[in-house]
């Protein structure tokens, strides 16, 4: 601490102290040596003086003693003149005191010669010398004591005083010197320290320390000043740079503001332009739509009258006229096609194209499309291959637009392919958490290059201007198809190489979501709510993927489904939709499955609905305790879920759904009956038309009749004739299953009364079941919609 404190002293004080200390130390050294020297010299002087005094006395004494050995007359009184001699004595050789002198006023005594004390002090000098005659005779002894205390005191007292005075004077001098020195030495350092302090405290880089000499401090100060100058320069530069940056920023901000303003102006302009363009486009579209409509009416007349004339000409055998009329008809139909396409496009552009969503069977659609397109495919000797699994099931979308799209693609494929193969392939896939229906039309035709493909889907452009004239078509079909697919949340894509054919892929969600489409959507609530043959299932789960998988699985199996994404929606739909079964997840955000389950059980009209828990959770006891009908754990397994669903699907719904099977061949009948029973459909059997009639008369009111044609007693034709006049019976859908090779006329006759004709042994089980399901479906629609109340069959 002391050390540190000392360092806190200002530099000039330190310097002063240093100088004084150095001064004091050297003075002390000088004084000490001087003193030692003085002491030695003083003793030497004293001794010499004493020696000379003694010698003088001894000579006198020797003379005296030679004369009188008793020496009583020895005069020692002369010693009185010497102030320093305090005692003296003369002894005879026999040590007899002969004479003595004692300084008056002193308390000296004369010792015996043999007891003379040893000289120990510097201020008291004691000597004892023998007195001998010049011939060497021993005459006696001479004792002398001198006291130089006073002398020494006089002498050293002065010296000490002088030294103190000199010391003090020297210190004073040193201080003065230090003071004057510091002006040259410490002052610059102090100034430097002050300047540094100012710089540190006030960031004042303008301070300069006065320069001072060429020594180290001078260098230090110069360096310091230089450093300050550099810093000042840098700071100034920095300030300039900062100012520049600020200016730049300011300018930038202004520029931005201007830009923003400009952008806003331009955007507004653009918006106005877009609005104007949109309005113009809409006006154009609605004009086109109106014009197309106006065009169709005369087209109607042209086609109609041409057809009439063609019929006349054909009847009259006027072949050339008939040929010309055919050309007119063909041209008129082409023109009508163009008008229809323009109408479609303008509707899409005007935002007036609507989606009509319904659940429809994909295989039925594919059959329709392929039979429609067949003549066109045959025209260029192409082969049509349809690849569609019977289990493809149904989808929920706009059937008309999908049909039109497929017809478009197939008709294109037919136009650009000769002696080739055209394949229509329908498949399902699960991607992005939902089920997609993939429809592919692949041909082995002329194909396209990249550039042609790029133009393909744009309206009013075709792969080549010449193709239009060569192959016909408006070039609008693909643009329309793509728009249709996009309206449904899907797309149409193409893959092709020149000379290597083309593949067009239509991809639409198996369940088109109305919310995703910006277009007006007309949902067919009736179709959606129509009871499926197997039952209506409400799926309550927060996982989109579960909905996708279950909807896919269940619609394929003939259930209709409704989706609820949370418990609240589930409860609402359970009330509105009256499902036959509820599939319920437990772990859901918000209201969990347990709550939904107990609330459902508390709603009177829902309490009887079987609830199947389908969850990751393992807690069967809890589930059954709360009233669940069954408990399944995820992952979803069709083999487990489907039997459980079949068991719980409301059996009363199918009790009334009886199918009458009229067949005389027992194995064939057995086959159909087993198939239907497996499906959960009640069956009434009849061996021929007569038995069937009797069954109907007895009050059986089947939802459908599966009829063989060739039977004993009463055949199928007769049976149909019999039931036709009957108001109720004539409405029952009839499906013919027969081995009879029917003539076209017979088929035509049957068509009016029969839903479908299956050739025995050649029909797919699924197809027949679908017919049955549809009939049951229709039956359910027509019955009074009292939930849970089974309609009584007509007695």
């Amino acid at each position, binding site marked *: 601490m002391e050390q540190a404190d000392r360092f806190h002293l200002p530099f000039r004080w330190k310097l002063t102290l240093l100088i004084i200390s150095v001064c004091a130390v050297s003075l002390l050294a000088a004084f000490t040596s001087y003193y030692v020297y003085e002491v030695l010299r003083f003793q030497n002087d004293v001794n010499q003086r004493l020696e000379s005094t003694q010698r003088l006395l001894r000579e006198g004494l020797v003379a005296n003693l030679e004369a009188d050995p008793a020496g009583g007359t020895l005069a020692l009184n002369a010693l009185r003149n010497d102030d320093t001699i305090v005692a003296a004595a003369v002894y005879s050789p026999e040590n007899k005191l002969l004479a003595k002198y004692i300084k008056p006023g002193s308390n000296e005594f004369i010792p015996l010669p043999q007891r003379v004390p040893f000289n120990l002090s510097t201020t008291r000098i004691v000597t004892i010398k023998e007195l001998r005659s010049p011939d060497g005779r021993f005459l006696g002894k001479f004792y002398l004591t001198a006291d130089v205390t006073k002398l020494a005191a006089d002498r050293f007292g002065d010296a000490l005083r002088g030294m103190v005075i000199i010391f003090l004077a020297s210190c004073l001098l040193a201080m003065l010197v230090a003071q004057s020195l510091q002006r040259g030495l410490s002052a610059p350092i102090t100034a430097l320290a002050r300047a540094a302090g100012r710089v540190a405290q006030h960031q004042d880089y303008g301070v300069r320390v006065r320069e001072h000499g060429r020594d180290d401090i001078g260098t230090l100060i110069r360096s310091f000043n230089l450093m300050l100058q550099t810093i000042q320069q840098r700071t100034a530069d920095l300030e300039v740079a900062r100012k520049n940056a600020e200016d730049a920023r300011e300018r930038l901000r202004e520029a931005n503001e201007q830009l923003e303003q400009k952008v806003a102006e331009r955007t507004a302009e653009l918006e106005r332009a877009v609005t104007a363009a949109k309005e113009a486009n809409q006006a154009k579209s609605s004009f086109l739509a109106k014009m197309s409509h106006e065009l169709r009416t005369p087209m109607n007349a042209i086609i109609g009258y041409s057809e009439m004339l063609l019929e006349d000409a054909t009847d009259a055998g006027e072949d050339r006229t008939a040929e010309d009329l055919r050309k007119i008809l063909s041209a008129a139909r082409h023109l009508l096609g163009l008008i229809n396409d323009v109408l479609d496009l303008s509707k899409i552009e005007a935002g007036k194209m609507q989606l009509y969503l319904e659940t429809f069977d994909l295989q039925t659609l594919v059959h329709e499309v392929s039979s429609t397109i067949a003549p066109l495919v045959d025209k260029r000797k192409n082969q049509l291959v349809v690849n569609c699994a019977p289990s493809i099931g149904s989808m929920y979308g706009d059937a008309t637009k999908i049909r039109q799209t497929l017809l478009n693609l197939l008709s294109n494929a037919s136009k650009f392919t000769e002696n080739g193969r055209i394949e229509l392939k329908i498949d399902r896939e699960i991607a992005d958490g939902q089920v997609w229906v993939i429809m592919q039309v692949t041909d082995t035709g002329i194909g396209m290059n990249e550039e042609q493909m790029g133009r393909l889907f744009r309206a009013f452009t075709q792969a080549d201007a010449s193709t239009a004239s060569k192959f016909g078509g408006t070039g609008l079909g693909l643009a329309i198809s793509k728009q249709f697919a996009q309206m449904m949340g899907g797309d149409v894509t193409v893959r092709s190489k020149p000379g290597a054919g083309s593949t067009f892929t239509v991809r639409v969600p198996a369940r088109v979501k109305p919310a995703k489409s910006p277009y007006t959507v007309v949902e067919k609530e009736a179709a959606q709510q129509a009871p499926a043959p197997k039952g209506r299932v409400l799926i309550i789960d927060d996982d989109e993927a579960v909905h996708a998988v279950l909807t896919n699985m269940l619609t394929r199996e003939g259930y209709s489904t409704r989706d609820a994404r949370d418990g609240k929606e589930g409860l609402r739909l359970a009330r509105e939709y009256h499902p036959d079964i509820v599939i319920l997840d437990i772990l859901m955000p918000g209201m969990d499955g347990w709550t939904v389950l107990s609330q459902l059980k508390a709603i009177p009209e829902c309490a009887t609905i079987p609830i199947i828990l389908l969850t990751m959770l393992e807690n069967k006891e809890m589930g059954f305790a709360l009233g669940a009908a069954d408990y399944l754990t995820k992952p979803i397994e069709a083999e487990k879920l489907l039997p459980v669903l079949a068991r719980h699907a409301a059996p009363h719904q199918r009790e009334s759904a009886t199918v009458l099977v009229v067949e005389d061949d027992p194995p064939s009948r057995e086959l159909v009956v087993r198939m239907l029973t497996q499906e959960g459909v009640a069956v009434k059997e009849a061996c021929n038309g007569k038995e069937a009639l009797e069954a109907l008369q007895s009050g059986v009111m089947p939802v459908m009749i599966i009829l063989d044609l060739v039977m004993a007693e009463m055949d199928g*034709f007769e049976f149909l004739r019999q039931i036709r006049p009957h108001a109720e019976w004539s409405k029952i859908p009839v499906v013919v299953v027969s081995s009879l090779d029917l003539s076209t006329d017979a088929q035509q006759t049957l068509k009016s009364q029969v839903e479908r004709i299956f050739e025995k042994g050649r029909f797919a089980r699924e197809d027949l079941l679908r017919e049955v399901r549809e009939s049951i479906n229709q039956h359910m629609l027509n019955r009074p919609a009292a939930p849970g109340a089974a309609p009584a069959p007509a007695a």
Partner: protein
Amino acid sequence: MAKILIVEDNEMNRDMLSRRLERRGFTVAIAVDGGEGVAKAHSEMPDLILMDMSLPVIDGWEASRQLRADPATVAIPIIALTAHAMTNDRDMALKAGCNDYDTKPVDLPRLLGKIEALLPKSPTSPPPP
């Protein structure tokens, strides 16, 4: 012989359709707007009505509804004809009480099939084998 009432405002379409149907042995009655259509349905009691939807006075949908609401005409089958080839036209027609639906320009064989299907006993259908 089945009698068909054609309700159609366009003269050419009316003329064409009536002549083509007559050639096939039908008796044809004509109405030029919805109001006349309803009146003719009562006075002529046709076996079937071909109803255009865009009609003056009252349109085809309204005419169909009126016919369905009247016990005298409730049983007469109605086929709606419209130039709008949209599904909702069919739905609207069926909702209005029509039994079937076809688009214009008329595809005669198709229309005949629908007519025959709706007539209790088709005059042109060949006898069953």
